[in-house]
């Protein structure tokens, strides 16, 4: 890992931490209020706030994971840094696509 990836990984972790706590709080709230899927979708559809919250989380997670997976591959597989980077970035892009698709499904 070089200093640039180090900063990106820490910065994305700092972004994700409050968002994870918010997500857990939302889960507790939704279950304790007995909200149905329709109730939740009624709140999220068309909401710029929820699109921003979960969109930011998905982007941060994709960046964070790709850097971490690259490190794991470098240390635990025969791949060199460059090859590990290609695989890890591809994995990050898959996560990004899946995550943004999920966000789109609840806010659009």
């Amino acid at each position, binding site marked *: 890992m070089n*200093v640039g990836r*180090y900063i990106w990984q820490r910065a994305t972790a700092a972004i994700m931490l409050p968002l994870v706590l918010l997500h857990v709080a939302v889960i507790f709230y939704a279950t304790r209020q007995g909200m149905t899927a329709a109730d939740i979708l009624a709140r999220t559809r068309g909401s710029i706030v929820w699109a921003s919250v979960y969109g930011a989380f998905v982007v941060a997670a994709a960046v964070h994971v790709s850097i971490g997976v690259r490190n794991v591959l470098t*240390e635990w597989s025969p791949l060199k840094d460059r090859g590990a980077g290609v695989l890890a970035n591809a994995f990050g892009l898959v996560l990004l696509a899946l995550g943004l698709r999920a966000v789109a499904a609840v806010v659009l």
Partner: protein
Amino acid sequence: MAETRGELNVAIWRGAGEGRYQSYRVPLRESQTVLDVVTFVQRHLDPTLSYRFACRVGVCGSCAMTVNGRPRWTCRTHVASVAAGGRLEIGPLANLPVIKDLATDMRAFFEKWQQARGVFAPSKTRHDAIEQIRPDSAARMAADAAIECINCGVCHAACDTVRWNADYLGPAALNRAWSLVNDQRDAGNAARLRAVAASGGCHACHSHQSCQEHCPQALNPTASIAGLKRRTTVAYLKGELKG
């Protein structure tokens, strides 16, 4: 010679990468060090045994080996403190190629010092006045904490990241770089920070702290590496690592 107090069962690695542990019986003596045991084997039982030592008093850093699974400086390790049940297993340092028996090839270790720019870069000539450095300045105190390294390779052998990542500079080289980063007489910090901020540099460290756990000089390379992480992060954000 000190009085014999029994016998030690000693297993010593013989061979290079391919090899095996061979058993010897060595007289147990008072205040005996692990290096004394190895020397006894070489002088009295098997003159073909290869190992490395020089000062015998914990200064030169030549005699580090793996003793009962832990990297140690053998000249300052008393048998009584490590030989549980009168048994000793002595092998070469880990994470370095073995030349023969207990002697490892330290070239990669010292090449990483060079890669980390662990060489003093003078900022003045002999004609300039000697730099005055306050002993209580923050930089001098940080350098002091890192400066007593004897290059024994124990931290390098103990480090998981060195084992996993062939490009990692390792705790000794990075600790040296940190002592120079804090040397106000040094003029090489731009290149040094670039070297330790690259892939395989200080950011590859997982802070497992095996280096400080095993360092015979009780140094804390993990703290030095953390200092480098902070310093390079600031330099990167200020755009000082380009070039």
